[in-house]
């Protein structure tokens, strides 16, 4: 990784704090309104609704940073404005509305966490998340032999495949293989380009899986993100997992090569980080 001095995984604001802030602000607003009301202080209670509005914005933020978006949570600030923009003269009504709204936000927060997955917060240190970050870091020594030009070809081939532009992948892969000649790099990089090119051609031409296909050698396994299948025999359902595993490993190795040896391509590669993460997490 480019900035090993910065701890991996640090984010601008941890999502857990934001999650905690949703009930704190919403129920806090209601509690504050109750305290003001019971103490008899002559202040307009409606200003306490600001806490509910802030809690709604925070909930919308939590929905926004998840790969799978929850439209209900995203639109809560709109509902907050609709509910609290219209003045209520009765203090009891204001407090009841705030309490019900706080309960609703808490239910939506639980729903968001249980049904819409973990957040992918913007990382401030330029590192990669989770197992993808671990793999890219692990493969860094093996990528030291790569020239920036070869790594750039790896980035382009990976991004072309991610974008579904399969017709362009073989050209980029061939150029990448040429740039790897006499580099002294592990043969796994060349194999990755070959696998990507072969499978891209098959996909582009809508051909069925071939009888024989390119595979990584067992000697390459140390460099691969996912272990090679124990056997490449078809199972009871006539499915051979080796074909898909070869592509997954090829994509991830090229991503790691590009990330480690071509810093200029990182911004572009970041747009496919979720894609790479999905591949590595199976």
């Amino acid at each position, binding site marked *: 990784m480019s900035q090993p001095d910065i701890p991996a995984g640090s984010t601008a604001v941890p999502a857990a704090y934001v999650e905690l802030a949703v009930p704190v602000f919403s129920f806090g607003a209601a509690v504050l309104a109750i305290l003001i009301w019971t103490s008899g202080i002559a202040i307009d209670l409606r200003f306490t609704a600001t806490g509910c509005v802030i809690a709604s914005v925070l909930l919308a933020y939590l929905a926004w940073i998840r*790969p*799978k*978006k929850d*439209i209900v949570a995203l639109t809560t600030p709109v509902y907050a404005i609709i509910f609290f923009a219209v003045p209520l003269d009765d203090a009891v009504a204001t407090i009841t509305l705030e309490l019900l709204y706080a309960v609703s936000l808490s239910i939506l927060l639980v729903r968001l966490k249980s049904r819409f997955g973990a957040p992918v917060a913007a990382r401030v240190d330029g590192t990669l998340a989770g197992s993808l970050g671990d793999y890219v870091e692990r493969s860094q020594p093996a990528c030291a032999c790569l020239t920036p030009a070869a790594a750039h070809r790896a980035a382009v081939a990976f*991004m072309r495949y*991610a*974008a*579904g532009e*399969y017709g362009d992948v073989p050209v980029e892969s061939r150029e990448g293989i040429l740039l790897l000649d006499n580099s002294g790099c592990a043969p796994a990089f060349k194999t990755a380009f070959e696998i990507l090119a072969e499978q891209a051609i098959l*996909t*582009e031409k*809508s051909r*069925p*899986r*071939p*009888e*024989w*296909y*390119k*595979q990584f050698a067992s000697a390459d396994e140390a460099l691969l993100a996912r272990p090679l299948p124990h056997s*490449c025999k*078809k199972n009871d*359902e*006539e*499915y*051979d*997992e*080796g*074909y*898909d595993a070869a592509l997954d490993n090829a994509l991830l190795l090229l991503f790691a090569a590009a990330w480690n040896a071509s810093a200029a391509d990182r911004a572009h590669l970041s*747009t*496919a980080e*979720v*894609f790479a993460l*999905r*591949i590595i997490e199976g």
Partner: protein
Amino acid sequence: MKIGNVDVKVSILAIAVFVVFTILLLVASVNSPEVRSQLIWLIPGLFMLLIIPMALNYMSRSQYADITPVYEAEAKTVRIKLINENMIGKPVRIEGVVEKVRFRFLNRPQFIVADRSGEISCKMFTNPDEDIHEHDVVEVLGMVIHRYVAVGDPVINCVSIKRIEKKSSPAKER
């Protein structure tokens, strides 16, 4: 109801709306002479509640029938896991098992289709040619889009979904 080659289907919701308003009109016309005098407009208006959804369904289904061959020619077969935001706007073909069917009653069914690599929502803006149920093995043709127009995870705007026979994958190690 079949119009030309297109099998037009009205959603249960549209029929329910028609039935509710028919009952309301009957009750109102029995109790109010003023309503009875307006029946010449109200009855055609009532039937428009059925005719408009039928016309929309016919138009969307005939358009889907026209573009399906284009997708059959251009769509690439991909694993669900490989579908990502960079593929927005690309025609794809996936094969998998239907895990859930939602919003069928709106004639806007959303199929959750899964293969060995993952699952994805396939949104359809009209009803499909075949009645697709959970656990059916299907082939889906469609375009990768965002779930909410410009944001959200990638989903498939489904143009065609049909049941298929389970195929074998003859692959061996080199």
